[in-house]
């Protein structure tokens, strides 16, 4: 379904992503881990075509998405939603409008400029917000929401695109543990219920283990680990992160139950 072949991205002399290849044969939830600067974001951004690759190809169902230009490129972007660490919403606009931005690729610039979103789309945006538990926030401005709520709005925008793939670049890095869990649960549920492929950059091992079907470890732009969560032992993790004996997972964890096993208040 997704074939990544020798993808490289150079910034000057430095390879941010260095000859990365892997294949995915069915829709699944994939976690990419690695320390800061490993090239995770760069890779996801290339997949969404926010950043151009230097060489290599990425085939989605046999079509090379890296060679798309103009309209085709934007059509692919609308098939391949992205969720950012900083949410990247339009802060001064209301939540529903932000969600409706997911349909921009389908409408002409003039139509969107005049705010002529079809009524069906508005209804659907509100359904999605309800599904993600932020329906009450619909008329507020995006900037008035908490981080966790904003991230769910961002996911709602992604769902509004009705995408085949959802890319999430450290979706929980600026959230507190409570909200982090809600957001990760949401992503997992989207995968389970809608069958969309989810690829998420993650900073915490336990999150990757807990939510993903497959984990890819990156270091200095290369893939150094590719396997199931069970294979991701502390020793392997040390390798990925280039850490020494002092490395402990609990220290990086953000999940609430690794810190205390108290039940999460519903």
């Amino acid at each position, binding site marked *: 379904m997704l074939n990544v072949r020798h993808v490289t991205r150079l910034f000057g002399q430095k390879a941010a992503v260095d000859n990365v290849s892997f294949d995915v044969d069915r829709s699944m939830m994939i976690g990419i881990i690695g320390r800061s600067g490993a090239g995770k974001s760069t890779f996801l951004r290339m997949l969404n075509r926010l950043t151009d690759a230097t060489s290599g190809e990425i085939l989605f169902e046999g079509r090379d998405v890296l060679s798309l230009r103009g309209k085709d490129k934007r059509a*692919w972007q*609308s098939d391949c939603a*992205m969720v950012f660490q900083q949410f990247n919403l*339009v802060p001064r*606009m209301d939540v529903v409008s932000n969600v409706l931005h*997911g349909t*921009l*690729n389908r409408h002409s610039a003039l139509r969107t400029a005049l705010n002529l979103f079809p009524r069906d789309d508005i209804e659907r945006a509100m359904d999605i917000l309800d599904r993600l538990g932020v329906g009450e926030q619909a008329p507020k401005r995006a900037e008035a929401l908490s981080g966790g709520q904003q991230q769910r709005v961002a996911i709602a925008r992604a769902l509004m*695109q009705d995408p085949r793939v959802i890319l999430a670049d450290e979706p929980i890095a600026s959230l507190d543990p409570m909200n982090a869990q809600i957001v990760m649960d949401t992503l997992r549920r989207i995968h389970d219920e809608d069958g969309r492929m989810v690829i998420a950059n993650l900073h915490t091992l336990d999150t990757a283990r807990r939510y993903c079907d497959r984990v890819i470890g990156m270091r200095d732009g290369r893939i150094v680990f590719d396997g199931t969560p069970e294979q991701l032992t502390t020793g392997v993790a040390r390798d990925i992160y280039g850490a020494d004996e002092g490395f402990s997972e609990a220290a990086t964890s953000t999940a609430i139950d690794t810190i205390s096993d108290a039940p999460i208040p519903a």
Partner: protein
Amino acid sequence: MSDTALGHHTGGGTTRDAYFEMVRRKRLYGGLTILVFVVLLVSGFVLADGRNAGGFWNGLSQLGDFPATVVAEAWESRADMPAHLVTYFPALIDTINIAAASTLIGVLIGGLLSMLSTRGLAPVPWLIPICRRIMDIMRALPEIVLALAFIFILGGGPVPAMIAIAFHTCGALGKLFSEVNENADLKPVEGLASVGASWPQRMWLAVVPQVAPNYLSYALLRFEINIRASAILGFVGAGGIGYELKNTISWGQGKFDEAAAIFILLFLAIVIVDNLSDLARNRLTHGGKK
């Protein structure tokens, strides 16, 4: 305490000398700068005085003569004043329309140019330096040049002034707008790029909401400036109240009462627009919400 001071004295003699040296040099440079400045100013004044048709001191004593004549004449026929004000009001509207239309055109084109010339927003990077140079040239071209050229081609009237002022405004606002754009948050733009939005959609939905208050504030300031510019261009033949002023103010026409009415209209228009725009701009920059 005296100990530490002593220690400093023996240890830091050279730094202290260096400091005094620096102070001395700074004073010297400061003094020289002021001297050069004063010399330039005085000699410039003397030069300008010499090249002027009438001398400064001569003229100073006659400064009041012309206004006195105008006021006297206006006072004599003060009964006609309301009628004159009504007569020339349409010309004032013309002047204001010239300013408003050219500001509007300047905002539209300047806004577009500014987005094409801001890093991070421009759709293609090679457009950035080109658009910047275009704006520099538009900004540097004084309105009068274009106005006179268009008067030659189109004949007199307000349109040449409008084109000329709009042209300059595009460049001036474009530059200010691109400074505003530099401070715009690019995250929403990227967010919209990731859903496959086209360039106009990204600009309209992610950039414009952020920059609109600042754009508006600069546009109002420009509107004030453009009213003055459109009055002055009228004086060289481009319609509006400036044109009427030129016709009424020449000697021997016996129309100084009408000139006085035009003075009053223009003065009031400028003061009112200045104050309104001041108020609105304060709202925009400080008031924020509510």
